[in-house]
């Protein structure tokens, strides 16, 4: 039988449109950080230096009357400094300082700092804060302010660079995680495809050939009877035929089921019913599968893999109830919990299957190898398995897997 066509899982590539939109947002974000940091530093300095100039550098004029006399200069000085800050920030934004490489950025910082410092001093002269100052006073004013601007812009740039590095690191991590999970999903899809192909091969090809072999043996048996072969020879043939029949009806079926449980390509409900039907008639077993459970799993990209996980868990519970628990009554129930049970949406929906039995109960030290395997398998899918005492008197196995949130 030919393999089932399956659509490829989504790849990790990001569309170009959203990449450029992201870059625009990143640049705007970087600029905001640069201007904010530099703005805070420079404004703090502007206010601080204004107050310092008046109140700290001239202790000899600390008398209240002198302070009051000095006060009219305060707004001018403050305004000069704030205008300086504004010009520096405007220039930084204009030259897109945060986008420049380190050397170019250093050059740009100097190119901003000196003219701005000069402009500030010019403004001071214009407003009469300084009247014909000596050259060294002017030089100190200009260079100290230039230094302050260099330091403030430098710190702001460092802050931007740190954020960029952090962001790139986070993005790389996220992409790595996405790639890993995509690879894992592709691997799981491939595994399911191969499983199904082999199971189909077992059912279609191998069972078909076994049927033909049985028919051939029937023909030989008939000839043997007509030609009067010995009883022993005929019995031997009949034995071979029985073996073939057992292989076809039992072994091949079991093997195929191990690979790909019957019905998982249709629904969880069907797969669980198919599983329960295989349990011997002497066992009182019923299964209830809530339609919501199938709906929840159908929303995901890997519904078949999720169904297999749940079916395997339920199978484990039934097998153990029969093998270790000597149960005669088994109740299987599959439903959903959490999230949008009531249709309210939000939160994670989980599909939960329970297998309760009336057997001998929990072993003193649970040594179910299958349970460990089931637990491991479910763990990989974010699910879990739990063994507890059952109200029926035996054991209760609970299996849970996460389902995609409702859309």
């Amino acid at each position, binding site marked *: *039988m*030919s*393999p*089932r*066509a399956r659509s490829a899982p989504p790849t990790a590539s990001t569309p170009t449109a959203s990449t450029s939109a992201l870059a625009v947002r990143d640049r705007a974000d970087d600029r905001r950080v640069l201007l904010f940091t530099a703005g805070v530093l420079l404004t703090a300095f502007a206010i601080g230096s204004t107050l310092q100039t008046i109140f700290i550098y001239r202790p000899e004029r600390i008398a209240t009357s002198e302070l009051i006399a000095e006060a009219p200069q305060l707004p001018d000085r403050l305004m000069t400094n704030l205008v300086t800050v504004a010009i520096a920030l405007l220039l930084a934004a204009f030259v897109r300082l945060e986008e420049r490489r380190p050397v170019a950025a250093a050059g740009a910082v100097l190119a901003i700092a000196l003219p701005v410092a000069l402009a500030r001093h010019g403004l001071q002269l214009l407003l009469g804060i300084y009247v014909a100052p000596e050259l060294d006073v002017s030089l100190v004013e200009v260079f100290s302010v230039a230094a302050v601007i260099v330091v403030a812009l430098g710190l702001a740039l460092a802050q931007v660079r740190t954020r960029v590095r952090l962001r790139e690191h986070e993005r790389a991590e996220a992409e790595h995680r996405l790639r890993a999970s995509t690879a894992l999903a592709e691997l799981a899809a491939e595994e399911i495809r191969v499983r199904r192909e082999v199971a*189909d091969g077992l*059912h*279609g090809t191998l*069972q*078909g050939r076994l*049927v033909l072999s049985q028919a051939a043996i029937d023909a030989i048996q008939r000839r043997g009877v007509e030609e009067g072969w010995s009883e022993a020879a005929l019995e031997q043939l009949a034995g071979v035929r*029985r073996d073939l*029949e*057992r*292989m*076809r*009806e*039992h072994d091949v*079926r079991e093997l195929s089921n191990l690979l790909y449980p*019957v*019905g998982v*390509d*249709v*629904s969880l*409900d*069907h797969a669980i*019913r*198919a599983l329960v*039907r*295989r*349990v*011997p*008639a*002497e*066992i*009182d*077993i*019923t299964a209830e599968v809530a339609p919501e459970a199938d709906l929840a799993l159908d929303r995901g990209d890997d519904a078949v893999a999720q169904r297999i996980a749940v079916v395997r868990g339920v199978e484990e519970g039934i097998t153990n109830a029969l093998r270790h628990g000597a149960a*005669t*009554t088994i109740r299987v129930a599959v439903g959903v919990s959490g999230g949008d049970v009531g249709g309210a949406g939000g939160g994670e929906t989980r599909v939960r299957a329970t297998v309760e039995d009336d057997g001998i109960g929990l072993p003193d030290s649970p040594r179910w190898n299958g349970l460990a395997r089931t637990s491991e398998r479910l763990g990989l899918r974010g699910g879990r398995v739990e063994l507890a005492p059952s109200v029926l008197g035996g054991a209760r196995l609970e299996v849970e897997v996460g389902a995609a949130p409702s859309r």
Partner: protein
Amino acid sequence: MSAEPAIRVILVEDQALFRSLLSDLVRAEPGFELVAAAGGIAEARALAANAEADVMLLDIELPDGNGFELGRELRRARPGLGVVLLSSHDVMELLLALPDGERAGWSYLSKVSSTSRETLLRALRVSARGASMLDPELLGRLRPRRGSALAGLTPRQLHALRLLAEGLSNAAIARDMGISSHSVDNLLNAVYSTLGVRDDGDLNSRVAAALHLVRDGAPGGAGA
């Protein structure tokens, strides 16, 4: 021969040899007409859109999907279309997934049981007239599950239910069991009552009773 119109059949089977054998079988049979034969879901969809048919013979395991789902889909457009499912697995429980109103007209045959030409043609006839027939050999292997309503039937009632599930009419059941039609009515009424099936005297209650056999019957398995 009656002058009834021929039963028009659409065949969907992916294995080429099996498909051509089945095609020949249907074509050669008086009273049947093969209107289309497809190897997959997509092809079947396209063919079914342009072909008037009474019944579909549908393989369940198809390369591009599940035949059962295709059957449901096509029946939604044409509720009168009969469906005979064929499978190499014993997946009769698929029929349990059908809602009450959709159950009539579905039959199920196993590819690996000793399904004969007569059985296949009978299934096509039964489904074409809206009744159901389940694989006699698979039914023969079913044993009532302990604790189920099915386990409450007497051996005679169970036998009558098996014959009903095989698509036999009450008259045919009476012939097979060597009893009167009236006795069959009584027997089946007792079956319905034990299984909790409401007897509407229509096909749905017969199908519902037959499906109890599928749900609560455990396949014995010849070699197990």
